[in-house]
């Protein structure tokens, strides 16, 4: 069961449209290292985690990633909302417009649709937690490149928040990995 809260985890108030930035930013919506991939990866890996603690952590980080997905969607929505057709064509978003108008869709910056091939659930908690740590670092790097691509403080500010969350999640997954490793070692009898 999940409950929706009618609020953003972090405020987004973008006043100036910027279609190029919208095109870049949408990769964190539906790209390989984006928030959808993160949320769905942790959510589906949790079922085969070995401890109550790791099941809780994957459930809770997956849930927070859904909140980040909403922050990204809000940013893309606000960057695109007042755009004219001419501006959309000039920004290279004509193809996106033909398929989606200004709807939010799960694609990367080049319009490639999201695929489950971006993620894995291996059934081996050591492999899965290593993947999760790598995913957080890749998302952290993506946020840094995105911050480099804009000079709008209203865009940079939420991106900095999201970048920091990747660092915290990486830390928590690292602690979980050590704990799971210890737990699995204890279960070995010779």
């Amino acid at each position, binding site marked *: 069961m999940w*409950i929706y809260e009618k609020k953003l985890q*972090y405020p987004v108030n973008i006043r100036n449209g910027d279609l190029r930035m919208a095109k870049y930013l949408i990769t964190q919506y539906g790209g390989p290292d984006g928030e959808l991939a993160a949320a769905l990866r942790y959510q589906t890996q949790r079922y085969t985690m070995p401890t109550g603690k790791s099941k809780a*952590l994957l459930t*809770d980080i997956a849930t927070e990633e859904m909140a980040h997905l909403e922050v990204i969607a809000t940013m893309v929505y606000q960057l695109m909302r007042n755009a004219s057709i001419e501006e959309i064509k000039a920004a290279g978003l004509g193809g996106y417009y033909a398929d989606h108008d200004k709807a939010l869709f799960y694609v990367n910056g080049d319009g490639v649709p999201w695929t489950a091939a971006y993620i894995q659930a291996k059934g081996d908690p050591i492999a899965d937690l290593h993947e999760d740590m790598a995913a957080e670092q890749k998302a952290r790097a993506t946020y840094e490149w995105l911050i480099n691509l804009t000079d709008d403080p209203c865009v940079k500010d939420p991106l900095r928040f999201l970048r920091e969350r990747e660092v915290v999640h990486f830390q928590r997954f690292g602690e979980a990995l050590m704990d799971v490793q210890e737990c699995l070692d204890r279960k070995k009898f010779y």
Partner: protein
Amino acid sequence: MDRYNCPLMRQLQEVSFALVELNLYLDNYPNNQQALADFNSLSQKYQELKAMYEAQYGPLTNFGYAPSQYPWQWVNEPWPWEV
């Protein structure tokens, strides 16, 4: 001042952020009494802020986690992305 940029919403976002942080930390360290005490105290604070916000702007959560005045308030705009 819109419902998503009012001081009450900022407070809700600040307190819920601290709660998320403590929640994730406690998932790894369930025996940390200080973190748990902070969590419980902020959890109570969050309920108070939530009740104040909902009295003014309508339900923050759906599916029965908050009551609604007549008519059904959940459908009220703007939604969070529309500020």
